[in-house]
């Protein structure tokens, strides 16, 4: 009997894949790792890339793209906790600043009526996009 293990690929938003597999290849931060049944307990951070799940002896494979995450291996169960988006430290930081900015602006217009607030939030979004583009341009010029 061929040895298999169970694979679950889940993200915070939904379950992406679930099934048995003969082998799994994942893009760990320090290079690709291949997991076979009875692998010892293992945890790795994943970078954006492709997960290959071999589901049969004949070499049939599922390809699933993930934008980073975490791989957890137990001898007969493998779980991939996938991120839903590409996560980079500076990108997260930019989002955080934006959220702060939104709050400040919202409070600055304490007496603003509803439509005004809406317009304001749209303006902030546009400004944020502009900032992003400028940042990208700066990076490419360097």
């Amino acid at each position: 009997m061929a040895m298999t293990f169970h694979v679950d690929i889940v993200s915070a938003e939904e379950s992406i894949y679930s099934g048995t597999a003969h082998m799994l290849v994942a893009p760990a931060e320090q290079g690709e790792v291949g997991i076979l049944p009875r692998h010892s307990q293992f945890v790795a951070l994943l970078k954006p890339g492709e997960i290959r799940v071999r589901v049969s002896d004949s070499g049939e494979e599922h390809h699933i793209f993930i934008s980073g995450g975490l791989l957890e291996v137990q001898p007969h169960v493998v779980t991939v906790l996938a991120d839903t988006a590409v996560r980079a430290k500076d990108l997260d930081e930019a989002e955080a600043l934006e959220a702060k900015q939104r709050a400040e602006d919202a409070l600055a217009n304490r007496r603003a009526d509803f439509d005004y607030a809406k317009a304001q939030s749209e303006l902030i979004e546009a400004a944020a996009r502009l900032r992003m583009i400028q940042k990208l341009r700066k990076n490419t010029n360097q």
Partner: protein
Amino acid sequence: MAGAKEIRGQIKSIKNTQKITKAMEMVAASKMRKAQDRMLATRPYADKIRQVMGHVAMAHAEYRHPYLEEREVKRVGIIVVSTDRGLCGGLNINLFKKTVQTMTEWRNQGAEIELCLIGNKALGFFRRLGGEVVANVGNLGDRPRLNDLIGTVKVMLNHYDEGRIDRLILMENEFVNTMSQQPKVTTLLPIVPTGEQALKHHWDYIYEPDTVPVLDTLLTRYIESVIYQAVVENVACEMAARMVAMKSATDNAGDLIHELQLVYNKARQAAITQEISEIVGGAAAV
């Protein structure tokens, strides 16, 4: 006659309102089902993370992550999850009442408060009430994405890392069933180890790259997923509350129409009677 005509106009306008509330009820009902499915779909991720966290924490009892450590509370961060739109009964107001109550409790203990608001309704409320708002996000729609929340959550996590806040609290609506939603207070940080984490057998993992970054990532993802779950659950609550509110509005409109119909019939009959008696009176005079 004028009376009857006016009443007819009134009935018509109420009927139109009834059509709208009826439509909103049905839309909310179908959206609620989808929101509930989405709510269930978020569970495996958080459960899995909790499991892995349990194993890692058991194997590395000596490493104390700041997220796991209780410290003296001088400042409290509160995340409030509200809806973007109204017409959903007392859902938001109940939550805000509970939030204000929680805030008062902490203030009495001498702690300062900072707020992180998710959803437009919370922003509107605290803009009127006042309060230190450090981050906010709104217009998430019916299918909130984790992406939209990352920045907002990051602000609070950063503040916790920097020691600006010593405790992070989440105010959310709990979906009990279609008829009832309960405001709930959850402490996000520090993470208190619960009894269920005492596993029967545990093991240590091989880590790549190392224990610390893995644990950091795990904890951050865990907090994010809990907040995301709350947001998704809130959408289900919103739809359920709106469905119930719109159903009672439709019923009330029905009652109103029924009463007005009776008044209208009486007015019409009175007018006819009067006309006949006028004709009879006129014929007798001839």
